[in-house]
């Protein structure tokens, strides 16, 4: 009793649980019972959205457009023309970069016409030999950072070329090189606007929240409707997906700039523009660079997903390989994506940290040494390429481009590995797999589906009420209500079950590993490095090894979820524990605590709010992965989003389904943040 008095909230939670269980037992499962399942009042919503999108696209704001081919004016909708123009612009940029890297005629066509190309056979832009691009990357790496980065860039480009993935890799690169800068600039711009004007911040905040919890797939459908299919659509979807974190981090960074630095800038006589570009943004560069890093990661994660709407490149090939269960092939492609991500990330970081030496008294050659070096490289490589034409008898010039069927491949090795594993471990894995599915997953799924809707509401809103009062209860209730009124409540429950299973396991592993590693400063460094590295991997990559081991089952998805979602749990645990002030450790030691007591009584309570924020991230990561898992067959919301993708009128379904997923994430996010903020205030950590 005393215990309950000390912790009044526990009492409330217990009471809530009792009510929840009673409701579960009492409510009769029947389609007509409102307390069992709410009627899907929102069933018409997707249709309305479809109609609205169609109206926007074809009937809203009609304008006269001159058609040069028919030589007459035509009526067309404003939005359609705008999106078309935008698509053309993006496509032109992608083609330009792509053709510099791979050769082609589209850019020339853009300035002339197809007829011109037909008449002038010589008018083809030749591809740069791969040696030039690889060498260029090495020089760039050396110029920006030094030998280490040069080596990394060299190895990465070398790997890509020698393994015969040059063409898809350059296709992916061309699309990333358009999407990433656009996202960065757009994010920087919107972030600065939000910093300057609180009205803009108020508008942007909820949009960012939704945008960051919407699954990747949901973006694809509206983009497809408004921008069509192709590389540009992929790039646009990527931009939409990658910009929100950039905005958020820009805003965060700008807000963290110390007021004294701002004042110093003002007293130095900066005008608004100088203030923004020479004081605020450079001072906030730490957060902004994390933003750029996130953008690059998102771009490459989207490389795979964007291939659904026609983006060519590594992602498309990876998807194909996965579908054909060619694990080795998928692995090699995955490594290519990771390498591009890592190299771009490191190059952008190095570029941002670049320093100028004002006192270097240097001649022309010294000042232009990297440019001259590149020129030299270009000439030598071209000479070599011509030389290669003669050297290689089979008509393939390896100095120019290594085609994908002529590159080295380790596919057979991996295939053999998979076969070996299947031969030797099949029994064991199968027992584990079946055991997990039958013993844990199926009952859990059944339990989730067996919840009457009223009980779910009582539980979630009750938790909201206990943690954050009436306001929280209403907010989470609102999120849930939206989902409950669509026709996908059952699907959402399945998503919730997979996510919560993944989160529980991830949190357990993450907190355990994090706590162990935080005891030792070397281990801390190592684990943070591991987290960094794993975070650079696009989410899709995680599916490859699990399919290898478990085939296409729920288990595969869940294991991928767990691996992916453990990263934030671990990272935040380590960060939270190592930010506990040293004086408290000393105070603990002088009070005679042992290690376990120190961990339990000092470290964990103080770090817990931060750890909970990690759990929040874990939930978001897990949700994303569950949805991506639809690729290898699940029966939750993700599967329906995937279906909407191939549906002509999918925009309504896709958006509503995406919102359902986003709202699950936002409800959890709200509860955890409310609680963590309270805890932080109570512990005076804010």
């Amino acid at each position: 009793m005393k215990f309950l008095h000390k912790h009044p909230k526990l009492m409330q939670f217990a009471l809530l649980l009792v009510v929840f269980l009673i409701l579960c037992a009492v409510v009769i499962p029947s389609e007509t019972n409102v307390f069992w399942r709410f009627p899907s009042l929102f069933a018409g919503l997707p249709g309305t959205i479809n109609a609205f999108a169609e109206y926007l696209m074809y009937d809203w704001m009609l304008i006269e457009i001159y058609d040069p081919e028919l030589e007459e004016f035509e009526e067309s909708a404003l939005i359609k023309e705008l999106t078309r123009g935008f698509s053309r612009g993006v496509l032109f940029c992608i083609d330009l970069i792509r053709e510099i890297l791979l050769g082609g005629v589209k850019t020339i066509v853009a300035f002339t016409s197809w007829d011109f190309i037909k008449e002038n056979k010589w008018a083809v832009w030749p591809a740069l030999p791969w040696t030039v691009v690889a060498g260029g990357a090495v020089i760039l790496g050396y110029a920006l950072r030094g030998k280490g980065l040069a080596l990394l860039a060299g190895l990465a480009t070398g790997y890509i070329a020698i393994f015969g993935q040059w063409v898809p890799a350059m296709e992916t690169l061309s699309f990333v090189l358009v999407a990433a800068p656009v996202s960065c600039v757009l994010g920087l711009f919107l972030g600065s606007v939000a910093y300057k004007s609180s009205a803009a911040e108020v508008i942007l905040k909820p949009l960012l929240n939704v945008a960051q919890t919407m699954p990747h797939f949901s973006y694809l459908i509206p983009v497809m409707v408004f921008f069509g299919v192709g590389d540009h659509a992929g790039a646009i979807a990527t931009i939409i997906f990658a910009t929100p974190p950039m905005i958020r981090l820009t805003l965060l960074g700008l807000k963290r700039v110390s007021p004294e630095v701002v004042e110093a800038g003002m007293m130095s006589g900066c005008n608004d523009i100088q203030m923004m570009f020479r004081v605020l943004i450079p001072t906030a560069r730490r957060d902004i660079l994390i933003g750029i890093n996130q953008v690059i990661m998102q771009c490459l994660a989207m490389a795979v997903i964007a291939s659904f709407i026609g983006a060519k490149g590594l992602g498309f090939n990876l998807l194909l390989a996965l579908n054909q269960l060619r694990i080795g092939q998928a692995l090699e492609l995955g490594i290519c994506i990771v390498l591009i991500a890592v190299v771009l990330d490191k190059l952008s970081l190095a570029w941002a940290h670049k320093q100028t030496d004002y006192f270097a008294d240097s001649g022309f050659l010294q000042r232009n040494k990297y440019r001259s070096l590149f020129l030299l490289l270009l000439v030598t490589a071209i000479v070599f390429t011509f030389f290669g034409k003669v050297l290689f008898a089979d008509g393939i010039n390896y100095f120019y481009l290594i085609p994908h069927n002529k590159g080295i491949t380790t596919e057979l090795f991996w295939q053999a590995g998979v076969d070996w594993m299947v031969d030797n471990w099949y029994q064991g894995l199968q027992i584990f797999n079946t055991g997990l599915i039958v013993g844990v997953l199926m009952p859990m799924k059944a339990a989730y589906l067996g919840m009457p809707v009223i009980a779910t509401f009582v539980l979630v809103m009750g938790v909201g009420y206990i943690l954050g009062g009436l306001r929280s209860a209403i907010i989470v209730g609102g999120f849930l209500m939206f989902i409950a009124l669509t026709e996908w409540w059952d699907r959402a429950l399945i998503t919730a079950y997979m996510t919560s299973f993944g989160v529980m396991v991830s949190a357990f592993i993450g907190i355990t590993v994090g706590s162990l590693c935080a005891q030792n400063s070397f281990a801390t460094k190592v684990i943070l490095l591991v987290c960094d590295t794993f975070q650079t991997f696009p989410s899709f990559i995680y599916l490859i090894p699990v399919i290898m081991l478990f085939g296409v089952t729920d288990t595969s998805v869940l294991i991928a979820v767990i691996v992916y979602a453990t990263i934030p749990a671990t990272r935040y645990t380590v960060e939270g524990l190592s930010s506990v002030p040293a004086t408290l450790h000393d105070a603990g030691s002088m009070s005679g605590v042992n290690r376990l007591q120190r961990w339990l009584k000092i470290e964990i309570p103080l770090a817990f709010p931060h750890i909970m924020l990690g759990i929040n991230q874990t939930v978001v990561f897990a949700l994303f992965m569950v949805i991506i898992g639809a690729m290898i067959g699940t029966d939750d919301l993700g599967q329906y989003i995937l279906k909407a993708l191939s549906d002509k009128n999918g925009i309504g379904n896709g958006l509503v389904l995406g919102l359902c997923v986003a709202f699950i994430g936002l409800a959890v996010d709200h509860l955890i943040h409310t609680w963590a903020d309270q805890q932080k205030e109570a512990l005076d950590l804010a």
Partner: protein
Amino acid sequence: MSSQNAPDLATKPVIKCDSVYKIFGENAKKILTQSNGQVDAKTFSNAGCVVGVNNASFEVHKGEILVVMGLSGSGKSTLLRCISRLTAATAGNIFIDGQDLLAMNSKQLIELRRNKMGMVFQNFGLLPHKTVLENIAFPLQVKGLGTQESVNRAFEMVELVGLDGRENYFPRQLSGGQQQRVGIARSLAVEPDIWFLDEPFSALDPLIRKEMQDEFLRLQGVLNKTILFVTHDFNEALRLADRIAIMKDGVIEQLDTPANIVLKPATEYVRKFTEEVPREKVLKIGAVMDPAVDASKLGSLKVSQDAIIQTVAEAILTEPKHVEVVNEAGDVVGSIHAGKVIKMLFGNVNSSENDG
């Protein structure tokens, strides 16, 4: 008052504040008009406002060091920020060289800051992404000077504050004292007439602080700026100031020379500060001397009126006769006797003014 840089009281003041108020809160302006300038902290806090500066009026003359001293929350930094217009004053007038500061548009303000003002911050406010040299060159580059020119000028400043050899370091690679030297160099790079220092040495260790105060006095000896210096350290104020303004709850309690503040505290609050002050270390002979006496009573010893008591105390105390006090031209301005010095140091603190 330091005699070599005697402020020029005859000319127009460089900074002139006239009933300046700064009140934080939404309806501050309205409530202030209603209250007719009679600001009572309680009524304002009831209305959700906080009083920062309450009816501040004073002038700072060319070459003068005015130190604004007060504890945290006394409004001293707010006052400084009103005068640099980093925050907008709620009411009152501020004139810089006769120009109405509050009437300036942002363009004029930027011009003013680029040419006439320099400011040093408590936590240095250095740009973390720029080297020492770049930080110092920053105001020049913002002004539109070419790279070479600004770098050359910045390098002169590096030498002036004694950081040569570290010009390519980043702020994070420097100690606190060195960082503040960068802050000082940056604030002086554009050769401003007016120099604002906001608790510049408060974040430094005591020994470094002393060293930086010496450095500050040395620089002022060379540059002769008009200075507004904010501090919470009374001893620092006494050491550096030509005049001190002591603030409490936004009100200037007393504005006077260090000697007068120590010898004639205007309010109980000011007196509390002066109690612990080692007088022999802050007072000058000129502040405690008696009128000149007959030549017959004088010994052979002469002291300057600007000498700090401590530095000449031994000589005066071992001299049985009265000691002649002279100004820097050598003219006799008064006399002092050992008994007076003893009374000054060990006598009843409050009675000293009656003896004078």
